[in-house]
């Protein structure tokens, strides 16, 4: 094997031989190498995270018709480092009555829950942490750890606003997990496996966004809710509960939350890419080599991240009950209907030629989407008639 | 679909109609009668197909259409049920299908379908008429319209089952279904006391016969191990049955079975002495009368005897009994019929007497003649009943017009001159009447009755012959009397003036049946009639082939021919003569109390049977046995037990049991309770703790017992 086509194993072999050459027992060597791999991945991600800060700020600036950071370095690209320095030298306050251990544990968990996700992301056919055969569930599991971190933070910081924020966030997370799982099962059905790698390989011929566009959309919505970003950013609704669960955090602890959120968003962009946009596939370009594949995947993830930002800076915040109602009464049933429909069509069209298969799935989704739009239109018409004379914008607010 | 399968399906439509109507279409009159008539039509269609196939099949008698399935597993074999259509079955099926269909159709009109709802009609009473928007009094629709159609559908089902069945069991099932339906239908207007009583009477009386019939069937099964005709009529089986003697009257097994089955017939076909229910059955609506007394139920009795003829004919004693009963019934009923004023009662008694003719014919061995008369009679009697119903209907119209509800629309002396009012009814009724009285050469009745007479004559049974001749004369006489009183002359009452013709649903059946009442006789013209050599009688050839040995056609005889000619024409003539200008009942010479009261048979029964039964039940059993004897003994026991009980109580129970054991235990328990109460602390954890301790203790104990010891 050479470096170009299988870098990870190449390096691993080299290191193993090196270490065993030093007289290290085989299993210890493997443990060490895996540790090195993990550390490498994590540190890479963190560095990438720093870059993300800059991206976010630039993009939001463009959305809001500003320039954004442009002083420090070319295009202000070194702005994040300045931020980090600021965060580090800030005073690290632990509020009185706070539960020290939990308080300090929470940000780490929050960061960890994001980093855990990267263990199963197949960056390239041969570059991935583990090929877990229950990857889809693993995502949810890691997400639940994120929930935990939020609760811990909110509770330990002994602050009402924080607690309220945590309650909201947990409510949102737990309810939006359901359509998320349901939509993650659709690529699972199509690929016949929960393993991320196999899902990606399943999109060799056609990306699942073509086969299941509705699923892609729902997954994106649920992901945004999971991330707690606008329009679902009730956990830190500045105007209502000052900053939500991390109100009491200062300095680098807050930085961890912040970075965690950004990386989380980017990660979900990556999952979106993996589940629906064909992962590292890009019309055979990935065959040039694993590193190319990695770049493709990161590009797609960045695209997903950009979509998330786009929504974030375009939409206004939604009221909590509307949000939950939207999930329970609309998103969840739709997700389940979609799931069943996809499973059905998949079994029906299994034997047919690829063209028919793709067309059938696509048409099914389009049809369903059209029906949904019609239903929504009728619903909103009804609402408007219910509040005759009141402007539609405020009509729902006064319900 | 093979013909056998088709036969299976013939009885189904009516029963389906029954359930449909009862369960679903009960509210909707039009739907109900459509369903019922449609079902009848389907059955009719099937029956016709079967019939045509039957007559076009050579020697059907040897190989009848038959199929059977296993039904009830008896120890090592199966009790089979199945269907079978042999020549005799075919002809019966033919007339049953026709009459049933006609009666169904007729019922639609008879129950005033399409008329307004009655002003004060209640379910369970005949409709009293309504006032239409012009203030006229018009007939009102039957309140329980759907119910009626449900019942007659069930009735039809019973009859079809009985006809197509190939064994005594299903025959008996259909038989009993009809018994039930006759009960339901005679008591259809259960608001009327008389109707209720009539229903109960019919049910009870026929029950007497049915019990014996069931015994007979049981006997057959125990003797032959099968109930299907084909098995029973195996020559060797018949031979054994004929030879095996029984303790009763020295009859052979066959004789005894035949007798028992025949008693069933007596009940069903209203032969003397069990004929009493039939006249009362006139309480039901007229279609029911036609159904019961012409088409189905009474025919069922005769059908059964004819069906079992090969078995019954084995024992001369039984045959004698049958012949005697038949003959006696014929003359006996005829004499009563002469004196009746109720138009339907007359027909009822004439039915009894005609059935007597058939039974008598069977008794003298004239198998074909009996069957022939059964069929023809079914047609013209149905025609007559429906005609009388039409008449009554017209009269009711008149009654409503005058509004005088005291006038009985069924009393012939209230009629007269209806010839002009209701021509169709008149002509058809005339045809039916002539057929009944055996108007020579033209009508069906003549041929069938003639055959019976010649059969009796050629058998040398002169008593039977003469009696039947007289009966025939009387038949013609009272028929003519009825016709004269009803239609001829001038109207005797206002009601009769204002009577008028009934709707087509009622007249159409009349016409159709009239055709049969005339035409059906011609298929049975004897071969050497008047000495000239015609084709052999088709009916005789066909039905006769049912039997193993084709019975010989009784030779033509001028005496017989002359007799039937004379009695028929004479009867008709005298009847017309006697009643052509009778206006009120008093001028009727024949209103003899003895005849009018039916020889006091009912009174006799009530005196000999019913009163004693009451007395036995009330006075003897209840007063003496029960109250006096049994209760006395019981009371004795009671007192004794009481005494012993009180002794035990006072000297043992109270001191020992109560004081010592009872209260003692109570105190102990109380004490325990008081001291154990704290355990019930209401704390889950404590409960768990205790249970765990106990568990561990037991575990330790087991360990000790099992391992250490």
């Amino acid at each position: 094997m050479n470096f170009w086509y299988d870098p990870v194993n190449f390096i691993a072999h080299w290191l193993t031989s090196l270490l065993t050459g030093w007289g290290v027992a085989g299993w210890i060597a493997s443990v060490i190498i895996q540790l090195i791999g993990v550390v490498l991945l994590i540190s890479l991600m963190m560095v990438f995270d720093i870059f993300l800060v800059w991206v976010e700020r630039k993009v939001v600036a463009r959305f809001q018709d500003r320039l954004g950071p442009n002083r420090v370095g070319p295009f202000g690209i070194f702005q994040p480092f300045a931020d980090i320095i600021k965060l580090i030298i800030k005073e690290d306050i632990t509020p009185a009555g706070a539960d020290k251990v939990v308080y300090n544990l929470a940000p780490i968990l929050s960061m960890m829950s994001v980093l855990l996700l990267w263990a199963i992301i197949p960056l390239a056919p041969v570059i991935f942490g583990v090929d877990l055969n229950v990857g889809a569930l693993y995502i949810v599991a890691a997400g639940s750890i994120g929930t935990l971190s939020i609760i811990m933070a909110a509770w330990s910081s002994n602050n009402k606003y924080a607690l309220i924020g945590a309650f909201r966030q947990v409510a949102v997370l737990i309810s939006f997990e359901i359509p998320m799982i349901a939509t993650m099962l659709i690529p699972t059905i199509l690929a016949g496996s929960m393993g991320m790698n196999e899902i990606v390989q399943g999109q060799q011929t056609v990306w699942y966004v073509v086969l299941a566009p509705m699923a892609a959309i729902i997954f994106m919505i649920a992901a945004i809710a999971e991330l707690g970003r606008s329009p679902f950013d009730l956990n830190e609704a500045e105007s209502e509960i000052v900053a939500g669960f991390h109100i009491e955090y200062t300095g680098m602890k807050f930085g961890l939350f912040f970075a965690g959120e950004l990386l989380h968003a980017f990660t979900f962009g990556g999952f979106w890419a993996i589940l629906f946009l064909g992962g590292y596939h890009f019309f055979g370009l990935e065959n040039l080599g694993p590193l190319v594949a990695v770049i493709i995947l990161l590009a797609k993830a960045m695209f997903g991240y950009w979509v998330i930002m786009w929504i974030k800076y375009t939409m206004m915040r939604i009221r909590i009950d509307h949000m939950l109602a939207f999930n329970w009464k609309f998103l969840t049933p739709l997700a389940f209907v979609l799931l069943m429909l996809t499973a059905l069509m998949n079994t029906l069209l299994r034997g047919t030629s690829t063209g028919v298969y793709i067309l059938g799935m696509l048409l099914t989704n389009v049809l369903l989407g059209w029906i949904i739009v019609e239903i929504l239109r009728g619903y909103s018409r009804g609402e408007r008639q219910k509040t005759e004379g009141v402007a539609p914008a405020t009509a729902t607010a006064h319900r | 679909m093979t013909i056998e399968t088709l036969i299976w399906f013939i009885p189904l439509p009516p029963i389906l109609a029954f359930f449909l109507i009862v369960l679903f279409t009960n509210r909707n009159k039009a739907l109900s009668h459509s369903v019922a008539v449609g079902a009848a039509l389907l059955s009719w269609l099937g029956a016709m197909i079967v019939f045509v196939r039957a007559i076009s099949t050579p020697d059907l008698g040897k190989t009848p259409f038959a199929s059977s399935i296993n039904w009830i597993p008896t120890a090592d074999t199966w009790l089979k049920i199945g269907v079978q259509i042999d020549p005799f079955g075919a002809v019966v099926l033919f007339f049953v299908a026709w009459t049933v269909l006609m009666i169904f159709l007729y019922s639609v009109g008879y129950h005033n379908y399409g008329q307004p709802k009655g002003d004060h009609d209640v379910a369970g009473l005949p409709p009293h008429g309504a006032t239409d928007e012009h203030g006229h009094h018009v007939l009102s629709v039957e309140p329980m319209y759907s119910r009626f159609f449900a019942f007659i559908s069930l009735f039809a089902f019973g009859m079809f089952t009985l006809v197509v069945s190939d064994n005594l069991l299903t025959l008996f099932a259909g038989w009993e279904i009809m018994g039930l339906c006759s009960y339901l239908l005679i008591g259809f207007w259960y608001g009327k006391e008389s109707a209720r009583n009539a229903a109960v009477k019919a049910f009870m009386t026929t029950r007497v016969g049915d019990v014996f019939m069931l015994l007979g069937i049981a006997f057959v099964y125990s003797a032959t191990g099968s109930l299907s005709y084909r098995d029973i009529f195996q020559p060797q089986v018949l031979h054994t049955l004929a030879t095996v003697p029984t303790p009763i009257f020295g009859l052979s097994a066959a004789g005894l079975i035949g007798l028992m089955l025949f008693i069933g017939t007596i009940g069903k076909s209203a032969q003397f002495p069990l004929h009493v229910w039939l006249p009362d059955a006139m309480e039901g609506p007229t279609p029911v009368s036609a159904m019961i007394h012409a088409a189905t139920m009474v025919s069922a009795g005769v059908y059964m005897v004819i069906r079992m003829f090969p078995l019954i004919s084995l024992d001369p004693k039984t045959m004698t009994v049958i012949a005697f009963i038949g003959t006696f019934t014929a003359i006996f009923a005829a004499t009563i019929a002469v004196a009746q004023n109720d138009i339907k009662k007359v027909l009822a008694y004439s039915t009894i007497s005609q059935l007597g003719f058939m039974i008598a014919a069977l008794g003298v061995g004239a198998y074909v003649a009996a069957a022939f008369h059964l069929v023809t009679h079914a047609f013209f009697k149905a025609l007559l009943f429906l005609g009388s119903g039409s008449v009554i209907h017209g009269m009711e119209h008149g009654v409503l017009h005058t509004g005088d509800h005291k006038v009985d629309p069924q009393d012939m002396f209230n009629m007269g001159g209806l010839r002009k009012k209701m021509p169709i009814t008149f002509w058809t009724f005339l045809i039916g009447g002539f057929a009944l009285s055996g108007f020579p050469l033209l009508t069906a009745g003549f041929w069938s009755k003639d055959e019976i007479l010649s059969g009796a004559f050629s058998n040398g049974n002169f008593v039977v012959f003469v009696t039947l001749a007289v009966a025939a004369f009387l038949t013609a006489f009272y028929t003519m009397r009825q016709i004269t009183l009803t239609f001829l002359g001038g109207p005797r009452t206002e009601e009769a003036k204002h009577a008028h013709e009934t709707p087509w649903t009622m007249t159409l059946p009349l016409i159709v049946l009239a055709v049969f009442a005339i035409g059906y006789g011609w298929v049975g013209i004897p071969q050497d009639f008047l000495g000239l050599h015609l084709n052999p009688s088709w009916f005789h050839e066909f039905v006769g082939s049912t039997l193993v040995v084709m019975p010989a056609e009784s030779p033509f005889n001028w005496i017989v021919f002359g007799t039937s000619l004379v009695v028929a024409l004479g009867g008709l003539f005298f009847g017309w003569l006697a009643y052509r200008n009778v206006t009120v009942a008093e001028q009727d010479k024949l209103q003899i109390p003895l005849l009018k009261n039916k020889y006091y048979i009912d009174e006799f029964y009530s005196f000999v049977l019913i009163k004693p039964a009451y007395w036995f039940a009330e006075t003897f059993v209840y007063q003496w046995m029960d109250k006096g004897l049994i209760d006395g003994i019981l009371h004795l026991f009671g007192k004794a037990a009481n005494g012993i009980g009180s002794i035990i109580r006072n000297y043992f129970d109270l001191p020992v049991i109560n004081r010592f054991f009872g209260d003692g235990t109570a105190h102990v328990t109380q004490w325990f309770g008081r001291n154990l109460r704290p355990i019930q602390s209401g704390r889950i954890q404590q409960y768990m703790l205790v249970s765990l301790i106990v568990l561990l203790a037991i575990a330790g104990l087991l360990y000790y017992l099992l391992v250490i010891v």
Partner: protein
Amino acid sequence: MTAMQIFFLIVGLVILGSALMVVTTHNLIHAALWLIVTLFGVAVLYAILNASFLAVVQVVVYIGAIAILFIFAVMLTRKEIRDHGPQLNSGWWLNVIIALLTFGGLLWMLQSWNGFSKTAADFPSSYDAVGQLGKALISPDAFVLPFEVASVLLLAALVGAVYIAFNPHSGDFRK
């Protein structure tokens, strides 16, 4: 003493220690958090036992839902954030004895069982346990019925919980 065994012992110690903390610590929130640690350890055990599906589900269900629910419950059922007074019943030493006896009894029963210290065959790498589990859960000749019953139970629990915890004074559900 292979690496696996060392790892196992560490996990086991974590599980038992955190379990002890769960039942002894004063602060209920901490107890719930310790419970999470225990559950995580159990998940790791599942992973060691090649039951990857169960491991992940353990995390999702227990940590993601049940533990969070516990924390909520604790937060909702307290007047102030600190717990005062002893958290154990007065007779807790008796309970210790009971628990120890139970443990001893279980151990004795186990060691008297001959299959006690048997070792597992190596897990065939090609064996798709998750797929097998899925088939077993939905195949009619296996466990589809218990599975359905369990789902019905979940539904019933959902409805029941909502009904019980629904506060009639707080207006209707939508608020």
